[in-house]
């Protein structure tokens, strides 16, 4: 029996993450990391942000965003290292670092959001 490849699953995560990243990251990054802290647009108050993230739906959304975006990075970065730098001899190490990193980030996001008070 042929060994089943996990490549399709990884590709689906890459693809779903790509769609999600394309749609929501530009605007979220612009507001949260540039416009609000630099005072270009009046920032929402701390209490408002806290209440927003306390909503279970917001936390679920943030978790899915972190999970998919990280696996999108892992897959794309892995192949960039393969194709760009042609370091195919470090195959296993790159694999473990990329998906392991994504896995670690996902668990961290889950921990932070699950215990959010």
């Amino acid at each position, binding site marked *: 029996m042929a060994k089943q490849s996990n490549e399709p699953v990884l590709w689906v995560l890459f693809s779903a993450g790509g769609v999600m990243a394309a749609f929501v990251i530009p605007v979220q990054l612009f507001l949260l*990391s540039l416009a609000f*802290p630099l005072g270009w647009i009046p920032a929402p108050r701390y209490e408002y942000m806290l209440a927003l*993230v306390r909503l279970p739906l917001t936390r679920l959304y943030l978790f899915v965003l972190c999970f998919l975006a990280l696996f*999108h990075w892992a897959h794309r970065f892995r192949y*960039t290292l393969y194709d760009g730098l042609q370091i195919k001899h470090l195959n296993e190490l790159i694999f473990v670092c990329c998906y392991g990193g994504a896995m670690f980030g996902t668990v961290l996001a889950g921990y932070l959001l699950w215990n959010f008070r």
Partner: protein
Amino acid sequence: MKTREARDTRQTVRYTEYHPRWYRAHVSTWWWLAGWPYLKFILREMSSVFVAWFVVVLLLQIRALSRGPEAYAAFELWLQNPLIVLLNLITQFFVIFHAVTWFNVAPRAMAIRFRGKRVPDPWIVGANYVAWAAISLVVVWFLVRS
């Protein structure tokens, strides 16, 4: 008769480990500097690193938020650090680059048919941009409170 011949052939065929070496042209590690399309490809792929950076900042923000007003204020101050601002500006460029290149190849990823005919590419790309604008407005509506 035929099957026996086939079996005989299979038995006589011998595989050798010493197959002829393929011809492979040597490609430099820096091949992607050889032209704009190659460079664009690598830049597009590298946008994923900035997607990951966005997640890191997002997680730091969530952590600061859960730790209280002082921690959150300190986090906002950290975002004003010139180096972080520069990094976030570069990130902004790359995530928009990712979005634009992603939407522009969408017709090749989804071949949508309507009444037996394939929906023209510009329609699919256009629909993606409309959805992008709509989703961005929803996020603005949630976050921008005056």
